[in-house]
């Protein structure tokens, strides 16, 4: 392909070609690299994503590979980042925005909720908004205020947006590419506590579509469902329960909006019991929506009320006590016990 005269040969970027074990952050990096190599309208924008590679290094070396006109270090202004990305999308680009931390997304809330989400409808479908907003989210990193939140419910509540969260490196690699390929805006919540968790990444083909849930572990007695980093906690809980004689089926939601209810309902019809787990406060949360929908659609299969295990309805606490706030395997199992003994 063309030598641009700036030392960067487009088309010469090396992308992942064989099955490899990668940390989740690196899997996203490889997914971004593949998407950028595949489509030159894909741009990255965000704070510190250039030479630094982002505060979590997710965009490591991408500016060196693709140039500063495709990996844009931006001024420190989240609304400006998202608002400019909207304009770039109007111009035919496919911007991928990095919001540095979950709690920093709110300065961009108007641009996301009142603009990005509604622009397609406002234009009667004539203008697409293929914008991806990457958000490292969630706790377990012992950080300061605004750095460990789970704000997914605000966006799941907003028509016009899609919201997803991978839980494994392979899903991270594929889902970021699928999100970029979508002509709709996608909020891509990255489980930052699992950035360094390693797993197999198979670049030959995706396992499934962006908005499909999956059974992360089969079981027969009780279903537990969650997304992102919570899936690891649910798998731990299932392992412990197994040793105590209870078979837990773990459903990895993957897509928060829309939710793929089929595998979840099939699981509940089998087990008759459901525990929903999430880091976010439970009030008016994604877990509430799941509980209500399962109650509507699988009422006669349920042996017990759907239970929610959530963060408490308080601001995310100081790091010293965050482990008391975050649902862990014990809190999940406490709920499993209650539903089993209902």
């Amino acid at each position, binding site marked *: 392909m063309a030598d641009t005269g700036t030392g960067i040969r487009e088309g010469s970027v090396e992308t992942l070609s064989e099955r490899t074990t990668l940390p989740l952050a690196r899997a996203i990096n490889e997914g971004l690299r593949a998407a950028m190599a595949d489509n030159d309208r894909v741009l990255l924008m965000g704070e510190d994503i250039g030479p630094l590679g982002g505060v979590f290094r997710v965009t490591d070396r991408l500016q060196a590979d693709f140039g500063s*006109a495709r990996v844009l270090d931006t001024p420190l202004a989240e*609304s400006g980042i998202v608002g400019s990305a909207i304009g770039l999308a109007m111009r035919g680009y496919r911007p991928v925005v990095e919001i540095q931390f979950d709690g920093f997304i709110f300065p961009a809330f108007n641009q996301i909720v009142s603009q990005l989400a509604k622009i397609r409808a406002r234009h009667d479908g*004539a203008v697409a908004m293929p914008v991806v907003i990457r958000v490292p989210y969630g706790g377990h990193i012992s950080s300061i205020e605004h750095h460990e939140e789970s704000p997914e419910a605000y966006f799941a509540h907003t028509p016009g947006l899609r919201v997803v969260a991978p839980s494994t490196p392979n899903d991270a690699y594929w889902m970021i590419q699928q999100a970029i390929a979508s002509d709709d805006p996608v909020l891509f919540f990255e489980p930052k506590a699992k950035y360094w968790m390693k797993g197999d990444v198979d670049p030959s083909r995706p396992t499934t579509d962006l908005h499909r849930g999956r059974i992360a572990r089969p079981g027969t007695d009780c279903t537990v469902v969650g997304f992102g980093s919570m899936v690891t906690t649910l798998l731990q809980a299932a392992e412990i329960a197994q040793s105590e004689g209870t078979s837990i089926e773990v459903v990895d939601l993957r897509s928060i909006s829309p939710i793929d209810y089929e595998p979840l309902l099939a699981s509940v019809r089998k087990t008759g019991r459901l525990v929903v787990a999430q880091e976010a406060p439970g009030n008016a949360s994604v877990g509430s929506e799941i509980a209500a929908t399962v109650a509507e659609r699988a009422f006669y299969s349920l042996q017990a009320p759907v239970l929610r295990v959530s963060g408490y309805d308080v601001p995310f606490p100081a790091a010293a006590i965050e482990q008391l706030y975050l649902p862990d395997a014990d809190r999940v199992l406490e709920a499993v016990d209650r539903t089993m003994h209902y």
Partner: protein
Amino acid sequence: MTEQMISSPLQGAADPGSALHTGVDPEPIRFLDDAGNYAPSATAAEFAAELEGVGVEDFKTWYRDMVATRAFDTECTHLQRQGQLALWVPSVGQEGCQVGLGRAAEPQDHIFPAYREHTVARIRGVNFVDVAAQFRGLTHGGWDVTDPANGNFHLYTLVLGAQTQHATGVALGQLLDAKRRAGDTALDAGEPGTATGEATMVFYGDGTTSQGDANESMIFAASYQTPEVFVVQNNRWAISVPVARQSRTPLYRRALGFGLRSVQIDGNDPLAAYAVGRRFLRLAREGHGPGYIEALTYRIGAHTTADDPTRYREEGELDYWQQRDPIARLETHLRSLGVDDDFFAETAAAADREAKTVRDAILHLPAPAADTMFAHVYAETHPRIDEQSAWFERYEASFEAEGTDG
């Protein structure tokens, strides 16, 4: 006039004696005086070349644009009073800067309005009927911005300031496109601008200058040297709040602080708006970065039809500005160029005819089909939307069935 416009307590502008206000502001750029006589300010001299080749036929076109827009505006205000529009946002008094800037843009340029830029809409080819449709409650948009017939004139934005960032994004896209054509993969901090051959112009008002988005968009524009022109129509009032509540410094000075070239023009002088708009747009297209134009004008009408300016404005202020009506000023200029009564009579009659045609068309606009609310939420299939639209259809059909049975 300048002193009056800038410092009269009547106008509620910044106090030049304030300790916060340093330096002397140059006279706002204008070619026509208050009455419309050709009397360029000293500050206009450097822009005079932009009016070379612009003659009486052009001014007649501009005049028609303004008169037609005012007739449409008046008609829509009546329609709202008659219950035919939910709301109307009159642009009366602001046609001068709008016509100059609208006519200054080239076809390839993109324009982002706020929601009061009816004159610019008309110039770019947008049908007035489509502009009125959203105020009749029929759509949240009204025209297809991807249709070349609509002149790259984007939809009205109601959460003010948001459009400034969309404009900056489009301008950034224009810049990136130009870089790609040139094989340039770098966009580094502090680098000079890039010639693009096209620009983006964004309109907003004095109230919106207080919005974070409007300020962030200038930061991005300056940082990336986007081919962009910011136009602030300082009409003195953000609904009921005077501009002095928004700013202690003339608004054009803020842009200087962001590193944008910035001037203040007499916003009721179409020639000044055209000349400066033309210059700034060309500089933007040629790679010299963004500019900012503060157009000093006045909202002769209410903010919207839900507003009551008698509760907060002095009668004398309205009189002052009505005597500087941009349409009257251009008429004086046209007459000085030998244009006679016939032209003005014909223009008025044509504007009335157009407004009545538009009025009839507005009244006959069809309501959208009920299921269109589901149609364009997502580009790709979405189970929740599919389920709900199917349920909606069954639910609504159940009433039809009842009606048939009954």
